């Protein structure tokens, strides 16, 4: 059974101008171990596809007009809010674009990290290394320990101290590391990352991608990586889906799609990429796709 199976997903959004069909029958299957890059121009529906999987589009304005989103066989479009909440943060992790606006500025990073860990631990105590039916106190202690451990794991030095920092005391790259820690602390099986490096300095982008790549490989999980950077796709994705105006134009293994783009649009996208191998040096050693071979 596929980890995630999006089938003929249709989504309409209502605005003051009336209802517009945004997604026109999206089909996408993600297996464990696959890193799917989703590329396409701004407004093509990438973010709304990602948000649909976690059912984070309020209704109204959103309305699903067709299809199914099956997560390990369970149709999420039929799931109620409590069921979705049990999946979020535990089975499905999410990372968004701007680390500066995605951390709550009024709380220490540790508070937010511990709350997510607690939530995941309540859904499944084994996430925190506890037996089923663990006491609230044990959960809390384990969540705290796990938060420090996780910060260390995403490469934050002095995690026991850093956990007491407020977001504004951290750099952009550090904040994104914290957000990655938050997304991964519940040991999710599916990670959805919506342009996780777009808001970062170029020098930091590579580090963050390398970190995500390492975390994903450590555990056999599926990833939907939304980006508009084909260079990124070439470096760390196994598969790619090209979106255009709410449709997937083409999809498949990265090598095949980038080497033999069947759509004029994909070709245009590829042509727009500044010679991809100029970026390769930064990420050498990731075992990514060789762009020269793809050309």
């Amino acid at each position, binding site marked *: 059974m596929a980890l995630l199976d999006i089938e003929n997903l249709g989504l309409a959004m209502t605005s003051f101008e009336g209802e517009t069909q945004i997604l026109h029958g999206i089909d996408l299957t993600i297996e464990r171990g696959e890193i799917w890059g989703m590329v396409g121009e701004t407004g093509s529906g990438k973010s709304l596809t990602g948000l649909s999987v976690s059912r984070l589009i309020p209704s109204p304005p959103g309305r699903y007009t067709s299809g199914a989103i099956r997560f390990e066989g369970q149709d999420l479009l039929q799931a109620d809010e409590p069921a979705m*909440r049990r999946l979020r*943060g535990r089975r499905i992790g999410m990372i*968004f674009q701007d680390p500066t606006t*995605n951390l709550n500025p*009024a709380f220490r990073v540790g508070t937010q990290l511990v*709350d*997510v860990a607690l939530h995941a631990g309540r859904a499944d105590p084994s996430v925190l290394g506890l037996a089923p039916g663990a006491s609230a106190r044990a959960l809390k202690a384990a969540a705290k320990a796990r938060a420090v451990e996780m910060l260390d794991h995403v490469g934050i030095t002095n995690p026991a101290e850093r956990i007491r920092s407020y977001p*504004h005391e951290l750099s952009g790259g550090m904040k994104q590391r914290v957000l990655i820690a938050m997304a991964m602390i519940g040991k999710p099986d599916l990670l959805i990352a919506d342009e996780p490096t777009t808001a970062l300095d170029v020098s930091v982008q590579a580090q963050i991608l390398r970190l995500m790549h390492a975390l994903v490989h450590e555990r056999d999980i599926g990833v939907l990586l939304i980006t508009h950077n084909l260079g990124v796709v070439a470096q760390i994705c196994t598969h790619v889906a090209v979106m255009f105006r709410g449709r997937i134009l083409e999809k498949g293994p990265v090598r095949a799609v980038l080497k033999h783009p069947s759509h004029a649009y994909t070709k245009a996208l590829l042509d727009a990429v500044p010679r991809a191998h100029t970026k390769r040096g930064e990420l050498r050693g990731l075992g990514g796709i060789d762009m020269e071979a793809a050309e």
Partner: protein
Amino acid sequence: MLFYFIRRVAMLVPMLLGLSLLLFVVARLLPGDPVGLAAGPNATPELIERLRAEFGLDQSLPMQYWTYLTGLVQGDWGQSVFTRRPVFEDLMTYLPATLELVIAALVIAIVLGIPLGLLTAVYRNGVLDYVTRTVALGGIAMPRFFLGLLLQLGFAAWLGWLPLAGRFPLIGFPPEHVTGFYTVDAVLSGDWEGLRLALAHLAMPAFAMSLSPLATIMRMMRASTIEVLQQDYVLTERALGLSSRLILFKYVLKNAMTSTLTIIGLYVSWLLGGTVLVETVFDWPGLGLYATQAILTQDFMPVIGVTMVIAMIYLVTMLLVDLLYGVFNPKVRYS
């Protein structure tokens, strides 16, 4: 942080000094002859002269101010020419009554206003939102004393549920004096019947005073909550499975509080300044009634005393609000 606090407290001193001087000058420049009024229509010129000397009014103005100022520091705030009672003692009698009223009004406004603001932001354009918005509009528009009169008419005259006015039954014995707050004193001495009576008397004037701050706090809270709910971090918190309750009452609340805090601070002075009418309507023996009495008899010292006390409370409140900012918004740096 500590240094900032000390500096802020030190800055209060020149402010209060300036204020005391200003009040003193204004009070002396006003036309009127309090001693003549106090002595009565049949007083002989000799008697008036003697009284003027007794109150130090025959001395030069700078000398009078100096005497006043040194007294101020030592807890001698002058004397009422009318009752001959020391102003400071009077203030200590009436201040707790006013503070009890203001604090009760503020507590009502905060305890109802903040959750209502949060909830109407979440369920905006729902029934609750519609009803509270209408009431709030009325609450801001209606003068406090008028609302007080309406309450008296409804709850005291018609329904007979609450006492019409006063702070305690005239024939009853108020709880043993500890803080001067009847409700607190009743709890401290375990006098539950006293507590019930004190609360029954407090209910209407406190509510009449609370409606406007309640409405404003609610609207402020609603607006800032709506803004906070649209922030990216709320989406992240939802995406990682935190419950709506935790998100709203922990993560959103604290962010939305920052702007509401300023309003609350400003309302302290608004409430203090506004007690006069409400105290008059409800015959509440507080600073407002005391000041009214003093003004009508052109009695300087009590008027200056009341104003000084209100100014002190205002300045201290503003300092507290500034410090609380740091609690709600960690980005605030004290320097």
